[in-house]
């Protein structure tokens, strides 16, 4: 066990933990966050995605000790039901989900690629989403929502 401090969605948490614990289990079980979810435990699907140092990481395979002092942003850290982040608002407007289990991977991956490259083409956005799985196949709406967000961001 070690004492580990992590900064999640702007709040600092200090926890007594096995440092090898996957970050996902800390976020979901210790902090009670609902955004990142266990899908595969092998970084194959994206359900556990969070943003760290402006990049998406798969929290199911990252030990909590590897996080360091930088802020982690989860899906619920982007915005609130009252004030959703623009990408969340675009997904709300487009009704871009069915079951919604995959949304952390879809939204955070799209946000990260557009933060890095606001002019990203559909091709580039699509490729960035290559490791994200949505088994309800709500792709049409998701892509429309991402495009809408990207266009609004440029404007």
């Amino acid at each position, binding site marked *: 066990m070690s004492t580990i401090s992590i900064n999640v969605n702007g709040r600092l948490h200090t926890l007594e933990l096995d440092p090898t*614990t996957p970050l996902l289990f800390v976020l979901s079980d210790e902090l009670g966050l609902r955004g990142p979810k266990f899908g595969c435990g092998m970084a194959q699907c994206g359900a556990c995605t969070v943003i760290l140092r402006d990049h998406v990481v798969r929290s199911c395979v990252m030990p909590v000790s590897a996080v360091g002092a930088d802020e982690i942003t989860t899906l619920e850290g982007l915005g609130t039901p009252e004030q959703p982040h623009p990408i969340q608002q675009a997904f709300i407007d487009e009704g871009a989900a069915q079951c919604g289990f995959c949304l952390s991977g879809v939204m955070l991956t799209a946000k990260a690629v557009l933060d890095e490259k606001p002019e990203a083409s559909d091709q580039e956005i699509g490729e960035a989403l290559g490791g994200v799985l949505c088994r309800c196949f709500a792709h049409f709406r998701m892509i429309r929502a991402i495009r809408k967000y990207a266009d609004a961001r440029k404007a």
Partner: protein
Amino acid sequence: MSVSRRDFLKRSGTLIVSFSGVSIAEPFAVAQGPFDTHPSHIDPSTLDSWLAVAADGSVTAFTGKCDFGQGMLTTQTQLVAEELCVPIGRVKLVQCDTSISPDQGTTSGSQSTPTNFNSANLAQAAATAREALINMAARRLGEPADQLGVTGGVITAKTGRQVTYAELIGNKRFNILLSATAKRRTPSQWSVLGKPIPSLDRVALMTGQFEFVHNLGVPGMLHGRVVRPPEVGSTFAGLDESSARQIPGLVKVVVRNNFVGVVAEKQSQAVLAVRQLKIRWNAGTGLPPQSTFYDHLRKQPSRDVLLVDSKDVKQQLATAHTVLRATYAYPYQMHGSVGTSCAVADVQADRATVWSATQSAYPTRSIVAKLLGLPVEAVRVIYVRGSGCYGLNGADTVSFDAAVLSQAVGRPVRVQLSRQDEMAWENFGSACVIEQRAAIDSSGAILVWDCENWVASRGGRPGYDQPGNVVTGLLLGYAPEPITPRVPAEPTGELRNRENAVPSYVSGCINGKCGGTGTVRSERVLSHTVQSPFFTGPLRSPLRIQNIFAHECFMDELSASVQADPVAFRLQHLRDARLIAVLKSAANTARWEYRPSPKPGHAKSGTVTGFGIACVVYEGDNGYAALVAQVSVDLASGRILPKKFVVASDCGPISNPDGLRNQIEGGILQGMSRSLVEEVTWDYKRVTSNDWETYRSLYLDLAVELPTIEISFLNRTDVPATGAGETAITVVPAAIGNAIFNATGIRLREVPFTAKRVKAALSAF
């Protein structure tokens, strides 16, 4: 703490469901009547079982049909708001809690809409409530009922006098039966139903606030994981106790028969425990080779059902002018939910609560009671949404896992399956072989159609008394429902086409009564159910997608054999007006060019494009769809790239056009993934496709080359509502297969149409 319906009713103004208590059922049981399920303590014939109006005028509706992403939360809420004439925001829907909602069996088979939106159940309950409230208002106001109007839960007389629902019934029971004569609001009157109301859960979902069963926390909760056998048929041989000693946080290793699970303080410790435990297993039973599996299926003893038999097919085929034969094969496929299945159970000495994403809350309650040795009344199952399931994924089995582990440690336990356990042991969609024989007469019409299918089957939904139908039950010592070989009886009564084993083009005549949708009089359909080495169960469009793949591709082969246009040839053999209408609508919308298939003069290199069509009456009577697929084929690589889908849909009156569109869009793309890449694989001992590297699915990078989609809605308001979540997916493999044929001249008779298979077929062509 105990929560009774009465307590719930009292609190329903604040809409809090306590998750901490167990309701012991009221001491009487009544037959469920319309649900065709087991008796329960909530009588569906009484209005109070379905609806409660609180003192603040809010409405709580109780349904036995749940939402797992397909939109039933929103549409059922719309339904209640519409029938009661209250704003949708005032209606709260409670889904599938065995202590407070009526037993509607399983949410499956595209039956939620036909069950709850037509002339019974939730729809009739809401209509009954409105009628009762108007009658109460008539008495209160001293005005004739037919002179009263209702808006927003306020009843107004022509004189201007008003009374609210809350004043009339707030916090009180109706104490009346559902009325069969209560007038439903008609589609022309609808202001909430039939509108594209955005899904009610979207804001919570998009902002990460939505509580899935995976997110539940119960005070004192521990974390469990299961240890499944290493091979199919392996049995438990022993545990090296010393391997369990050094595992931090381990609370208990639970062994019951062949069921092994661990419980630990933390989830990561449970994961570690599974990795470190040394368990000895006896060798498995072995598996038939995958390479010859379809032949193997056809040679097994089978339970046979003869769906239709005109008794003349043999003779007709023997003397016919042209006979075509073809054999189609469809692989095992997975539900493959993005989130592995999860449940939480709190089992105490005399009672148990299970929070479960099951589609079958009431049946699950019975099975849990059986596994725990508790009376069924002592078990409460509360539905909490999980990852999209598309049928019987691991939600039932993991609920049993959680119950068994919680009982073993006497504390609440959360169990989530590993990816490998989910995929290696789920109830797969059945592998099928479908053999077609047909003859064409000299005029170019189909004279005879003879179809036989072999369906691999093992277990399935556990129902109320078959725990062995899923892996946990099997490991605990219950056998799956047996498949007893049987020769078929003669078909009697009405044509049954629940699984679409009967092609749309035959007349389906049994003793002179023709329940089919087609014209072919010489007909036989024989279905063989064969023992599967793997568990099987309903996967979106179960057996329907397999059968329709074979029927609709074979129809294309028949039309090609007489150089007929595939649409015209279908129309020539159909006599069902609604099926004809969707077929024509899809063809017209796609600007179908009437021509025989395949296209003449195939290119030998580069990319070729083709169009294919397929149609279905889902389950013989539960929704219509026709689909035109436009695909391109890269001749060098064999890669299939769907470019456009045009679908026509008729599901009767549409409850929510946006929800329907979402289902159709998702169904088409899921069908595309299943057509092109998805297939369970195994070696001689075990399933080898047990993660997302080994079981292929299309990902979101599909966005790079996303096909376009166009939908033609035939919104028919003069007929009952049908299901619509499974119609579109059903026709995808056939439409794509037919498009490939149109483009290249090659006929693919085995799903999935992988690039490797396409290339091999092109080389042999």
